[in-house]
């Protein structure tokens, strides 16, 4: 429950989701990852178009509330969050409208080591 005087602040800035975590991040900047390809039935922040795709870790954002668990009453279950870069061609193939990239903030549970062919 949010105190009354904090409501305006929460609306302006959003409620913080950064949490403490007892494990070290599995990936570092520059690592190549591949996203998972699971049909999950909860809410998820991994869009369909970015499933089973290769990307590069470009930033570490800290550990945050894990939306998939949080959306179905399983608690916050904080997980490491990374900013991942996907090349346009990786996502859209020949339909890509030129060079470019999409950046997604993705939780560690969505990521696998990417050098598996």
């Amino acid at each position: 429950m949010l105190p009354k005087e904090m409501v305006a602040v929460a609306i302006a800035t959003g409620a913080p989701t950064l949490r403490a975590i007892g494990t070290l991040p599995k990936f570092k900047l520059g690592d190549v990852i591949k996203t998972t390809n699971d049909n999950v039935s909860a809410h998820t922040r991994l869009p369909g178009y970015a499933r089973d795709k290769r990307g590069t870790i470009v930033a570490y954002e800290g550990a945050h509330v894990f939306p998939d668990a949080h959306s179905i009453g399983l608690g916050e279950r904080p997980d490491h969050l990374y900013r991942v870069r996907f090349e346009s061609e990786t996502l859209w193939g020949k339909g890509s409208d030129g060079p470019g990239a999409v950046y997604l903030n993705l939780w560690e549970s969505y990521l696998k080591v990417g050098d598996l062919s």
Partner: protein
Amino acid sequence: MRSIADMGGMQGFGPVNRADDDTRFKEEWEAKTFAVNLLSLAAGCFNIDESRYSMERMPPVDYLNTSYFEHWLYSLEDLLTTKGVFTRQELEARIAELVAKEADNAA
């Protein structure tokens, strides 16, 4: 989930209409829906991820035929009833009451 809300990369909807980027409320009910949603979050009635998950489970045809704030209203009604803040019967009784009041005012 791979719901109707997961539209990134989907084709056939035509270009994004950037001429309609005015984010101000167009109707009073939109402002009220926004306010009740934010206050329900602040009061701990539900969390933001439950809210998004609720919208994703909206019947797909309804989702496509309704506006942004109608999605908010749908999840608000869904979560406040499933969490037991009020019952579906209470919600329907209140709607009937307001409809009758409006008919009286029009007469």
